[in-house]
């Protein structure tokens, strides 16, 4: 087994654990490169089937290419996608900085969709190497009734034994890609030939490394117009992946506040 096989096998194991242990399960599909890898691993786990719905939170401010990709893949892969809208920005916590306030809409939309489907488990494609608070996550991460994350008192998790029993009212976030890096995602996407939103590839000296809402996501300088070129670029980059995400940088604690409240 090479290193991608090891990562993939662990992700499949986690996704299968979630499916076996959680009654009302759904997978978040953001259409980004990570969630496409996650979806691919799920199809491998269940031999081409996806035995739970995919949730897509629509802020209505995504790039046109993202919507086009979502609708095409939904059809081609025969997916059960549930799309949820988001409340207007005026209803968000006004003490948050502007971009974080805008990002908080997504959390609110997510909470609404979870409540509608009364899901007790959500599979999400976050990675430890993306950002500091995500580095502290568990693979099976319990959330309170109000979706909040108590990062100060997380349950133990070892030997691939996950917390799969929960008191009534709590739900769990499952993170099958926690142990992957950005580089791993690209190497695996190349090897498995997984389709991608074209915005990741450079056009006129700019490309997106991370896809958020149009108004709070900015492209980075790059000439990488193929996966090979992106991998080559990443080998020597010292710019953080989420550098183009405005809400991470407004205040030192805004991303942590977003996550404690239920943001991915």
């Amino acid at each position, binding site marked *: 087994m090479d290193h991608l*096989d090891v990562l993939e096998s662990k992700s*499949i194991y986690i996704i299968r654990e979630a499916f076996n242990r959680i009654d009302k399960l759904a997978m978040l599909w953001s259409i980004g490169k990570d969630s496409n890898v996650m979806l691919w691993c799920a199809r491998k786990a269940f031999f081409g089937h996806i*035995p739970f719905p995919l949730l897509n939170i629509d802020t209505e401010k995504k790039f046109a290419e993202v919507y086009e990709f979502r609708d095409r893949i939904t059809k081609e892969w025969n997916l059960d996608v549930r799309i949820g809208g988001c409340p207007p920005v005026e209803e968000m916590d006004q003490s948050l900085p502007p971009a974080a306030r805008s990002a908080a809409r997504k959390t609110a939309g997510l909470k609404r969709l979870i409540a509608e489907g009364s899901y007790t488990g959500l599979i999400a494609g976050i990675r430890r190497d993306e950002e500091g*608070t995500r580095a502290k996550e568990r693979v099976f991460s319990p959330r309170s009734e109000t979706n909040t994350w108590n*990062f100060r008192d997380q349950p*133990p998790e*070892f*030997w691939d*034994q996950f917390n799969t029993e929960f008191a009534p009212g709590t739900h769990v976030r499952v993170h099958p890609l926690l142990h992957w890096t950005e580089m791993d995602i690209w190497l695996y996407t190349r090897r498995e030939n997984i389709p991608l939103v074209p915005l990741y590839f450079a056009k006129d000296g700019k490309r997106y490394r991370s896809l958020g809402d149009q108004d709070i996501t900015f492209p980075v300088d790059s000439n990488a117009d193929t996966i090979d070129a992106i991998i080559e670029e990443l080998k020597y980059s010292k710019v953080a992946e989420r550098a183009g995400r405005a809400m991470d940088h407004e205040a030192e604690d805004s991303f942590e506040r977003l996550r404690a409240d239920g943001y991915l």
Partner: protein
Amino acid sequence: MRMGTCKMTKSLDSSTSRISEEQIQTTLPLKIVIVGHVDHGKSTLVGRLFHDTGSIPDGKVESIRAMCDRRGMPFEWAFILDALQAERDQGITIDISQIFFRTQHRHYVLIDAPGHREFVKNMITGAAQADAAVLVVDGRDGMQEQTRRHAYLLHLLGLHQIVVAINKMDLVGWSEARFHEVATEVREYLDDLGLDLQHIMQIPVSARDGDNIVARSTETPWYSGPTLTDALDTLQPPVGSLDLPLRFPVQDVYKFDDRRILAGRIESGHLRKGDTILFSPSNKQARVASIETWPSKDEVLAVRAGQSVGITLDEQLFVERGEFISLPTNPPMLTNVFRGHIFWLGREPLMAGRKYTMKLCTAEYQVEVEKVERVIDVADLGTSVIDRVDRNAVAEVILRSRRQIAVDPFDHNMHTGRFVLVDNYEMVGGGLISMDGYADQRRSQTIRSTNIFRVEHTIPLEARWEANGHKSGILWMTGLSGAGKSTLAFALEHYLFKKGYLVYVLDGDNVRHGLCSDLGFSPEDRVENIRRVGQAAGLFARAGYLVITAFISPYRADRDRVRALAPEMFHEIFVDAELGICETRDPKGLYKKARRGEIEEFTGITAPYEPPALPELRIDTSAQSIEDSVAMLSDYVLSTFSLASNR
């Protein structure tokens, strides 16, 4: 904070032994856990390690310095790790962080585990994922409680590669004597734990100033060993479990289409299409019809340890999640009792009689704590005999389940030899399995001669009883060697014979020389010995005899199995005497031999005795004479086995 893909600093680029960028980024990072006592400088060491290996993204250090200025506080390297607001406020690392960094040889995932006592669960969470550990010890304080506890837990988690960073050497004036003092203290403790000291490296460092982290310090001309990063680069990546026997715990069974797929991860060994496989604990067998894959349609002929796979069988077998697939030639052990070397994380103490859910790979069993054997004091590695295990303590306990459990001893197979305990939605402990002194119960429940049919007897049992004037049955005496089983058995036989009973004693002398002459005294042979005695006793009883057996029969499961053969006819007699008294009697001189170490696995000394939970009769031979004991027995027999018409 993503660090996986950073450029090296100039000093590292100039290295001559450079490994290609492609190679580094396409191998798995080595996972390192940083442990040690609170305030000994773990987070500082990590911050410095990142900085000095050039693993921090541009601008990160500057932004933290700016933040410190804004708040009017001095800059600390530890802040690099402390990504959460709460941690800066409290000054301690609350949870594990996993962060990527690299040297010129390979990249690493660094797990920073908290040293604070109440966060042992986080330390376990971190260390259980690691391939190797850095133990940070303050050069001023030497080993402290958490240093010892963490070292002990590393040992319990099976981590044997340890780099010891003796930190804050600047604060002891870079004293060579002090370094050796602390180093000796650490080495002696690790030696007592049983760690192989060849894998242990000890380095004098000052994390705050970066001495001997990446760059060699000018302060330690007396030290010629490796710097921290040099030491890390010599550590070995984990080896796969390909050479061990096949273990494939069933994770789920899928029926999405006309296929019925058994899914799961192969924990050790290989599996081939066409193999005959055995399921444990159900003891069923089938053949592998196919190995399923997606999206490729190419036929897969073999899979191996580490792979998440799916297979179909050649017949419709009802198997569930939790069964262990193995080859029939090398199966896991079956048992309903074992010893666990555990660490306890529960808020409530663990005590005898408490029940927990045990998870072993994908299997789940209900277990009861039969006994707390010993609690280990991590400070001096002494043990105390107390009946409770408190939070964060380590102990050896006996666990028992109603069902048969498929297990491997941890030292045979780590994947199937460790378990976690769950109580009230929470994981409250973890442990390693030991089967020392306990038998593999597989042979005793496997029926090999499946084509033999039982002949129906034309004479009903009741007719035999009528003719004999008494009922028949098994009086099963169990107890320690020297408790008086044989003495009582022969005295009772004599008494009943004179009363006209059809009675016969089975004991070691008439069984071991013939029926069981091929068996020794290993736990497995003892189980088989008792199985045969049970079968023979059953035949005697069905022939109308009252049969008395006199065997130590130390395992409850074995006796229960004999009972299951003929529940109405089985009478368990617990011949009870204190070990000390049996040892003084010592009719065959066996205790003396066992104490001298000349007999292995001697019940009561080096092998366990499990007393009956609910015997039909208990005879206390330490408290009463042989005559009184025989009288109790004969009263019991006359009232239980006499027919109304009899005398």
